[in-house]
């Protein structure tokens, strides 16, 4: 089920919003204009993962060397520092076996027209009117 979480400009690039949907705390992130959503609960010991710091990706081919990509897409849990890729929810240390649940995020706009004195918003049947950004609770 889709939920409306924010107006698109409420979550500018580099920021996040934590929302409660269907009894779950979920963090919605804007990474360079793309939106991602993760469960706000670390699979390790249940810490509030989405309140953690976002880092770039740091790799080293040899001791003493490093390669740092500055896009802040590694989310670290504020409790024990476990690292997850904000795009996929995969754990950095154990990507095959460990992940945090991620959710689909979309930004939606509606057709607006003015006729005479009135402003019309066209809403496809079955969806709530008004705000644009929504998170799908169907987990991946």
């Amino acid at each position, binding site marked *: 089920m889709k939920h409306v979480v924010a107006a698109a400009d409420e979550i500018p690039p580099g920021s996040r919003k934590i929302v409660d949907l269907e009894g779950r705390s979920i963090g919605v992130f804007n990474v360079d204009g793309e939106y991602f959503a993760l469960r706000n609960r670390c699979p390790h*010991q*249940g*810490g*509030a993962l989405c*309140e953690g710091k976002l880092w770039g990706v740091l790799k080293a081919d040899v001791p003493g060397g490093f390669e740092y990509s500055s896009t802040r897409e590694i989310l670290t849990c*504020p*409790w*024990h*520092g476990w690292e997850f890729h904000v795009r996929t929810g995969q754990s950095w240390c154990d990507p095959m076996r460990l992940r945090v649940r991620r959710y689909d995020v979309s930004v939606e706009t509606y057709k607006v027209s003015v006729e005479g004195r009135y402003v019309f918003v066209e809403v496809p049947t079955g969806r709530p009117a008004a705000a644009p950004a929504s998170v799908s609770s169907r987990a991946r």
Partner: protein
Amino acid sequence: MVVTTAPETEARVRGRTRRALIDCDFHDELDSIKDLYPYLSQRWREHIESYGTRGPGGAYYPRFMDHREDARPPSGRRSGSEMAHSRKDFLDPYNVAHAILIPLTPAGRQMNPELDAALATAVNDWQVAEWLDPEPRLRASMIVPFEYPDAAVREIERRASDKRFVQVQFSGRPHEPMGRRKYWPIYEACARNGLHVMSHAFGSYGNPITGSGWASFYLEDHVGPAQAMQGNIVSLVAEGVFEAFPELKLVSVENGFGWIPSLMWRLDNAWTLLRSEVPQVKRPPSEYVREHVWLTTQPVEEPHKPEYFSQLLEQFGEMTSHILFASDYPHWDSDNPDMALPPYLPKALLDRIYYENARQLYGL
């Protein structure tokens, strides 16, 4: 002494639906050395302002996160530095029936002996005024200048009548192995006054964590305390401390516990070969360990296969009555009480680890 009842906050009432805990590693933190100024004489305040504090190097490996940021009080002061916030953030919601305070401060590792003694007594006064008096659930570790045993014994005698101090604190890496004669006056004073001896991981009096020298990375330091504690336990056994002071109990905090069974096997084996070198060790070493050593859970062992945890506890046998739950609040590597121990363990065992073992050890 003012005794106040802990306020019945909503968090406290709600917390009561959970099992009651006794937390054996709960940190009361200084926001800065200035927190001690009300408890220091002008002579020492001026000394600190002019000369600062100075311990031996190597104690501290810079880390990416020292305390949980989400445990910081609203004032912005350091996590764990305000009792009222720690109470609201942890003691109440987790239904902590008692917590043992373990302050990690510059006291106990000063090169200047008088400063060390002055800081130690100031920390203890601070604990009384800001932690023990307003919160009856708390008990405290007594800070002493343990590298200067005469002064340490004086502090023990000064405090011993306050039974809220339950143990005397050593850092994880004292100047000499803990069994050495230098420290025996402290053990004698502890045994006489009914105080346990507690060793908390980390801290340093100039010795590296490894037997091969100084490590490069905090990661190495972080897994190191097991080695240091093993060395100290072996020393206490080999030197005959537990023979000389049969009432003395050692509490090992934040050093892990998974290594105890294999250490006991190895020690017993070595003792059968080398018994004549150490006639003061009158019984198999594992017996001394089983009778005198308690260990806290945090950081709890997280084996790759969950069944290994149960197997580990089987190896402990009766000594599971010496395993104590600890959170290490508010440090970044603290354990969540809900998830520290596998929930499929027998309920009676969980009750002992979370509560009963500590209740008996500390007479709560």
